């Protein structure tokens, strides 16, 4: 049975696209057939994060009725499939995003997971993504404005009949004054699916010669490990802790002598 999940936030810049890309790969590593759809028809950039920006047929063409959905599916990294959105502003004005639900339904029997990267805000194309998905996963930041926007997104998703399954808190630095995981959960009345630490490796992933999600480029980084955990939570797979505990000074000293 396919799970169609919209990744939404309300606020811009919370890491929706980064979560979609990395979570898709995490799910693929768990043996799931995954399709990612860039449902942000106005400000598409999932293809940039996946390093797949040269795609001739896009979601725009499908929404305009000028191409079939399966013609817009591309092979992504680590076995995922991907439907990019077009970068053309002209086409964006003409597309009927309300057709998204029908397109997703057509493809649902081929995948275990379909992740929709929704736009920021609560405008029409966001509503289309939320409505096309049976479930919504909200991503937010540990600040009150981001949580307020997440709240509104939750209400809109529920209004459209999408089940809001949980929240992911991103850019966590553990500073005083941040909204804590417990507070985020209690304010939003949602379980926390993941707490992604602020990790320079995520930012560095965009700055490489060949851009690739952090989960591929630096899979042992704290953020990459958290993406994998979120994937495990979604599939109900047991989480295996791979992070090594930092050895103390004496342990490191002893290990030097042991090596000799």
């Amino acid at each position: 049975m396919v799970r169609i999940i919209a990744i939404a936030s309300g606020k811009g810049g919370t890491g929706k696209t980064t979560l979609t890309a990395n979570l898709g790969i995490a799910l693929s590593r768990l043996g799931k057939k995954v399709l990612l759809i860039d449902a942000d028809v106005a400000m598409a950039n999932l293809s940039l994060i996946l390093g797949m920006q040269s795609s001739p047929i896009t979601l725009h063409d499908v929404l305009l009725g000028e191409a079939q959905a399966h013609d817009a599916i591309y092979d992504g990294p680590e076995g995922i499939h991907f439907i990019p959105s077009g970068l053309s502003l002209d086409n964006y004005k003409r597309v009927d995003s309300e057709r998204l639900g029908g397109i997703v339904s057509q493809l649902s029997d081929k995948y275990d997971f379909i992740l929709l990267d929704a736009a920021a805000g609560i405008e029409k194309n966001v509503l289309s993504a939320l409505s096309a998905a049976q479930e919504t996963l909200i991503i937010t930041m540990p600040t009150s404005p981001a949580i307020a926007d997440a709240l509104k997104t939750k209400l809109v998703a529920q209004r459209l009949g999408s089940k809001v399954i949980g929240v992911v808190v991103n850019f966590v630095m553990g500073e005083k004054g941040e909204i804590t995981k417990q507070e985020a959960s209690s304010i939003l009345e949602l379980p926390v699916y993941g707490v992604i630490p602020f990790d320079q490796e995520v930012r560095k992933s965009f700055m490489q010669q060949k851009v690739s999600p952090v989960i591929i480029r630096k899979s042992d980084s704290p953020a990459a490990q958290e993406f994998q955990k979120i994937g495990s939570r979604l599939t109900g797979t047991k989480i295996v802790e791979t992070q090594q505990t930092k050895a103390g000074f004496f342990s490191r000293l002893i290990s030097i002598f042991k090596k000799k």
Partner: protein
Amino acid sequence: MMKNFLRKLSSKKGLVEKETRGNSQVEFLRDFLSKHNYVFSQDFEENLSILKRKHLVDSFVVTNFDGSVVVSSEGSPQSEAIMGTAMLSYIKSEIPDSEAVLIKKEGSWFMLFTLDKKVFIVEAGSELSNIELKALALELSILIEENKSVLKKEKELVDNNIE
């Protein structure tokens, strides 16, 4: 301990900005959510009112194609029901693949559309997308069906008591 001492010292001297957040923000957000908690009750009329608030509309009427009212959030607006149904039928006959009719009148939007052999007439302060209208119609249809089965059970109980 040393770290705490240095932190306290530097904050007293104003060297480090105090990163504290009052509870007021969290309380405000909790209050916001509590105002938008839409829990349906056993009372059908009350549920219609909850549905209005949840879907941000001012009123709605559901009719059959003959104009008879199935349910309304505002009493029994027979004339609006007949007029709306007639108007939608006319436009559907002229433009068969039209999905909805939107009319703006004195700052309000009236939206007419069909779903499952019923006509929905919705009034709101701003126009709703087809997606939003369908979401309202689906939830309304579920409420109507639930109410039908409740009424049926009540009738059966009354009939059994009479017998």
